[in-house]
């Protein structure tokens, strides 16, 4: 990756984060956000996070959509959501999800060979 491009991106990330976190701190006194805007501020990050991970989970290396049990990431993500809803523990969820993913991935590799 081009070095200058990455540093530019790091600068952009810093500016965006600083703006979101600090702008209202610098305004200082009480700012009341209308409920409607609050909803938008709450829904937007959830949608963004979903849009970030969905292609990683549902697309294969060539950009094809894979929504069947042969996709180890899809099953692992499903298992992770179920586990997180049950225990609400991020660390354990990541470990369980990685285990499911790795076991499925390795078994698929051997399945294809045999």
């Amino acid at each position, binding site marked *: 990756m081009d070095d200058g491009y990455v540093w530019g991106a790091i600068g952009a990330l810093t500016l965006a984060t600083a703006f979101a976190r600090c702008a209202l701190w610098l305004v200082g006194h009480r*700012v009341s956000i209308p409920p409607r805007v609050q909803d938008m501020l709450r829904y937007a990050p959830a949608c963004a996070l979903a849009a970030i991970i969905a*292609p*990683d989970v549902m*697309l294969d290396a060539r950009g094809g959509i894979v929504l069947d049990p042969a996709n180890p990431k899809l099953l692992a993500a499903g298992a992770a959501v179920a586990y997180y809803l049950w225990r609400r523990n991020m660390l354990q969820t990541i470990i369980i999800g990685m285990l499911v993913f790795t076991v499925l991935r390795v078994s698929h590799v051997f399945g294809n060979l045999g």
Partner: protein
Amino acid sequence: MRDTRPGAEADSVVEAHDPAAWREGLLLGLPTLFGLGAWGMVVGVAMVKGGLTVLQATSMTLIVFSGSAQLAALPLLAAGAPVWVVFATALVVNLRFVIFAALLAPHFAHLRPFQRFYLGYISGDLSIALFLQRYPRPAREPGKLSFLKGLLYPNWGAWQVGSLAGIFLGSAVPTDWQLGFAGTLAILCILVPLVVNSAALCGVLVAAAVSVLAHGLPYKLGLLVAVVIGMATAIAVEEAQSRRRGRHG
């Protein structure tokens, strides 16, 4: 509540370092530090596996200090998306902090601007939730600032230690292991609590579907398109629900 006089003398009493309050904040936040360190480690691994050098990843974690924005940026960087798309994506991912800042900033409106800036910059989701449970009202109270620092400083430290460990671990582990997927799993854990109602769930599902279908759009714009359509869906669902409640109620 104690009546504090305005003026320099009262200021120094209210803002004086209060070791007991600092420790109280530290102890309250302590159980969250391990999970946070692990989340930092996952982001550290994902950054190195995403193609950043150790220097770039280390600088990113120290300067940006926002796991979700950093993870969001990785696929954009890998695809060579324009810097303004990286900026817009990070802004959207961090919008939840605007709500947190609106709740927390009135507590410390009297501090110097620079101090307010860095307190805002290092305040993470969990610390803010814990702080607001302890101090729901924005009135000035002795020990409040020390309590917040007792939450924020260890929080920052745990994240950075985990993240640096992840960066060095990530460069030692073979790419075949696909440890980068841990970043996706971590985002799932942040995403689930944000799905606060059925409107949010509809928005999230629509955003996920659009991002997959619009994956081929130039400049990685599929992501921002997905966010806009997902958010519009969530708001439309919410409006439909409140109209129906209005008719029946």
